[in-house]
């Protein structure tokens, strides 16, 4: 049992490293942006799709499915590589990222991309829509759940706190909010610009279950999601401690990497770091 889990964790780590490499190549080739944001969440998105969500990539509109909402739409490169890996659309579409005619834009479009539940990009939109999904599941007596990933800066937006009130009042224990707490805003650190204080205390005061986890640690994530009860009449927030730019040493925790692209030399170093990690995990 233990061995099986260790093997699974190793596979997730390997896949995450491979997907980081794909994200980097995809964004750099297309002259895109938001590498660091995608690196911050790719472990969480991969984990949810591989381990948690009950979905069918061959039938994205299956009524019997869990729903995932990427509220921080700018991290979409992480979602795209995971959706392609699972077969929601062919992997070769990733090579068309943000090009004319592509379905894959700089923010996800629900009308065009199989598996995207709602269009996001402007902050503070995904969470209320996810509340609507969860509410509909309750009305329909559906056992399926709704997972929504928001950024920590995104929680500056007031619409989220309107959603948090309503979710608790309506006892949406089928709703799981995951906060990507990488502690960086566009202009610098949250604590210096707009201190979010304790999300755990805030959400508990709003009537939620609140738990913390390391958002890059698959063993912790597996353990946490196994323990989750989903039955006490409260929505749950998972506060994931993450590192913006995680996976490439010089991009980690640096506001400068919010939107810039690496030059050739930096690209070689980044690919080198990811390749050696892939090699190590492949052994």
């Amino acid at each position, binding site marked *: 049992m233990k061995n099986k889990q260790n093997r699974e964790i190793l596979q997730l780590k390997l896949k995450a490293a491979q997907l980081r490499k794909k994200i980097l190549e995809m964004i750099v080739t297309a002259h895109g942006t938001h590498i660091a944001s995608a690196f911050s969440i790719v472990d969480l998105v991969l984990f949810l799709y591989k381990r948690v969500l009950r979905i069918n990539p061959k039938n994205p509109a299956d009524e019997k499915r869990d729903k995932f909402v990427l509220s921080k739409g700018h991290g979409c490169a992480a979602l795209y590589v995971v959706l392609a890996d699972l077969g929601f659309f062919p992997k070769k579409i990733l090579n068309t990222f943000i090009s004319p005619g592509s379905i894959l834009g700089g923010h996800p479009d629900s*009308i065009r991309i199989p598996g995207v*539940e709602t269009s996001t990009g*402007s902050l503070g939109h995904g969470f*209320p829509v996810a509340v*609507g999904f969860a509410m*509909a*599941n309750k009305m329909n007596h559906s056992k399926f759940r709704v997972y929504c990933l928001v950024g920590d800066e995104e929680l500056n937006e007031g619409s989220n706190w309107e959603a948090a009130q309503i979710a608790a009042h309506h006892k949406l224990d089928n709703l799981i909010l995951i906060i990507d707490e990488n502690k960086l805003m566009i202009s610098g650190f949250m604590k210096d610009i707009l201190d979010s204080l304790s999300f755990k205390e805030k959400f508990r005061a709003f009537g939620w279950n609140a738990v913390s986890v390391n958002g890059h640690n698959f063993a912790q994530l597996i353990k946490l999601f196994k323990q989750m009860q989903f039955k006490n009449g409260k929505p749950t927030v998972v506060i994931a401690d993450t590192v913006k730019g995680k996976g490439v040493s010089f991009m980690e925790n640096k506001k400068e990497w919010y939107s810039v692209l690496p030059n050739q030399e930096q690209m070689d170093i980044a690919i080198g770091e990811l390749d050696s990690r892939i090699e190590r995990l492949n052994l």
Partner: protein
Amino acid sequence: MRDAYVDAIYRATKVNSNVLCIVGDIGAYLLRHYIKDFSANYLNLGAAEANMVGVAAGLAMSGKIPFVYTITPFITARCYEQIKIDVCYNGANVKLVGIGSGVSYGTMGSTHHSLEDIAIMRALPNMTVFSPSNKQEVEEAVFAAMKYKGPVYIRLMLTANLTHKYRSKFKIGKARIIKKGKDAAIIATGDMVSIAIDAAKALKKNNINCFVVNIHTLKPFDELLIKNLSYKCKAIISIEEHSTIGGLGSAVGSILSQYPRNKARFKILGFNDIFCREYSSDKLKIFEKYNLSSKHLIKTMIELYH
């Protein structure tokens, strides 16, 4: 129109159990029978409109048909980006219902007025805009919205003075000619329709025989009718309880100016890029102050026509 909406949403829910009546904490007394008979279809999401529209989009994308009802500025301007993205960009089947549009809340001031809602709602791709003129059209608009798959905005007034009975079928995007005319036309929407009818009666005595047209659907617009009128009529006036920017008049003007056969003179009447700072529980007194009375309409038509 409030009572008519309450009756209509009750009947709509009776025929389609996917219909939801969502409110931003208003109408509890009027909706008491609905709440009693359809408690599972009723949601009061409080005074939190941005969230309310996002939630409605989520419900709609799960197969529900949410009608989201509150005072017009709060269901249009306040949550505009939610309407743009969560509803229109997603193509979600949400019906937004604004009550007390224009200056209906005559004593409450500009915070409760909506003189820009047509402009901003019309500008959104995928959005359909209804503006009923009486109780009959409220019911027709609600049922048309329920049957139509896609975002709809319904602009309601508080009261409905117009007792006219429409015999033609309500068709989305097809205007209703209330009175046939010959050489002039008054194009109106909402409460302005009854003012247009009054003015047309008086104008007949002045030998100006006006068409009176009720635009119950502001988008899609009945382009064909406007084009037909434009070469039959010497003068056309549009009148609306809305800004002269971006509303009914702009829609008519856009058609006329792009139509080569147009030979009609044209004038837009509405609130002329101004906040309404007059107070009265009688809307007609406010119309008087802003040159939107039938008297002013008559005068304007005579000047334009001659």
